[in-house]
């Protein structure tokens, strides 16, 4: 506390990922290995949840990390890395899940490149470390009604649209829209409250 009082106010703390990404820009294989060790587990877990096939999931994870290695020069180290990895991994996995439709193509265009993904993380992003934030996400979504939770999972893990989810759950379209929006807002509020 005493030393903290003398710290420059407003000085930005460089995250380990940002440091590793700076090393990655210099083609440091060790930095790549460290980034893989730090994030491959959550990326693989997400892809496996979508595809449900280990070998295919590993192919997608391999593509994601190779893109990280090959396109690191496009990365802005001030932006959080994990959301980019997870968004790219999700898109690649959904592409494998079904043939590319126009909607899939548009989603890819939205999020494939570095600048369009999580350009600015919210203030509460640093309030919890990754492990505690993951536990909080599971708790908050787990507390939702089962149908609402199912709608969010169908949207996120299956890539279904509002209409497709409504048809799948036999619920009105407006209800599905509210479930997804309100569920994400509750998640946001819950994470903000934890900070």
């Amino acid at each position, binding site marked *: 506390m005493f030393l903290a009082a003398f710290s420059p106010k407003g000085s930005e703390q460089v995250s380990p990922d940002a440091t590793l990404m700076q090393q990655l820009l210099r*083609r440091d*294989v060790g930095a*790549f*290995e460290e980034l*893989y060790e730090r994030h*491959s*587990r*959550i990326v*693989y*877990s*997400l892809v*496996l*949840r979508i595809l449900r096939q*280990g070998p295919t*999931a*590993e192919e997608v*994870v*391999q593509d994601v*990390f*190779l893109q990280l*290695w*090959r396109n690191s020069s496009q990365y802005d180290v001030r932006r*959080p890395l*994990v*959301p980019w990895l*997870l*968004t790219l*991994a*999700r898109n690649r996995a959904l592409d494998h899940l079904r043939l590319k439709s*126009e*909607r899939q193509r*548009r989603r890819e265009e939205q*999020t494939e490149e570095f600048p369009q*993904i*999580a*350009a*600015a*993380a*919210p203030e509460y*992003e640093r309030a919890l470390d990754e492990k505690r*934030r*993951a536990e909080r*996400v*599971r708790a908050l979504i787990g507390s939702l009604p089962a149908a609402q939770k199912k709608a*969010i*999972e169908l*949207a*996120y*893990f299956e890539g*279904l*649209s*509002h*209409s497709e989810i409504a048809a799948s759950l036999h619920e009105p379209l407006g209800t599905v*829209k509210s479930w*997804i*929006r309100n569920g*994400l*807002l509750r*998640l946001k509020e819950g*994470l903000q409250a934890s900070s």
Partner: protein
Amino acid sequence: MNSHDQFREQIEAYAIGSLDDADRALLEAHLASGCANCVKALEEARWLVSQLAYLAPDAAPSDMLKGRLLQTVRAEAPGGSGQSPVRTATVPSWLWAGVAALLLFSVYSAWNEQRQRSAVASLQQQAEAQRAERQKLEQELVAAKLQAHEAMIWSDPKSVKIMLPAKDPKMPQLEAMWHPEMGICVRGWKVPTLADKRVLQLWLIPKKAGSKPMPLVTFWPDASGTFSAMVENPPDAMSDTQALAVTEEPIGGSQQPTGTPMWVGGVS
């Protein structure tokens, strides 16, 4: 609710990708118009949606995946091989390098062992040749010493010459030389070739009555009928000796003469 509020309510659904085509097209048009609030809200919503990944059950990729990735990355890194590996490769490069090193080491070991065996065989041949050469030199040295010894006996004034005429007039005469200290030499020329397994033997006949002949050296003539033999330490003194005699004996010699002396020479 104005149009901005309507778009703002769709930001989360757009971020998660669940907007239907028509709604998505309208929202994208609004974002393209430069609504800063909606753009900022979208950035945060994308981060929020990415957190849903933690709903996935925890799982770990295989070590093989890490191996393949690092193999590719190392190949593309500065100082790497520059060759992209086969995606399905399952044997890491360090293992191939190990196998190659082991193979090279095995070949080198076999070659080195063969080389060392050849070197040992060569050294053994050289040692054998040196041993044979040394033996030959020693034999030549002994022969030279004998020749020198014989030459001294034959030339020394103290030596006494003894002629050994043959009992058979057709046979050549032998001659001997007895030196008091250096011994007895006997030699002959044109001596007929002996039968198989037969040799000539020199005898010393003592003066003392009743004494038996003393066996000395055995010898045989070469193809030209020439021979030379020497007794360095005669068993009796010249003054006690009556005569020298030569008989034909079985190979190896005899303790007593088995036949009549062929040559006899009196010692004066």
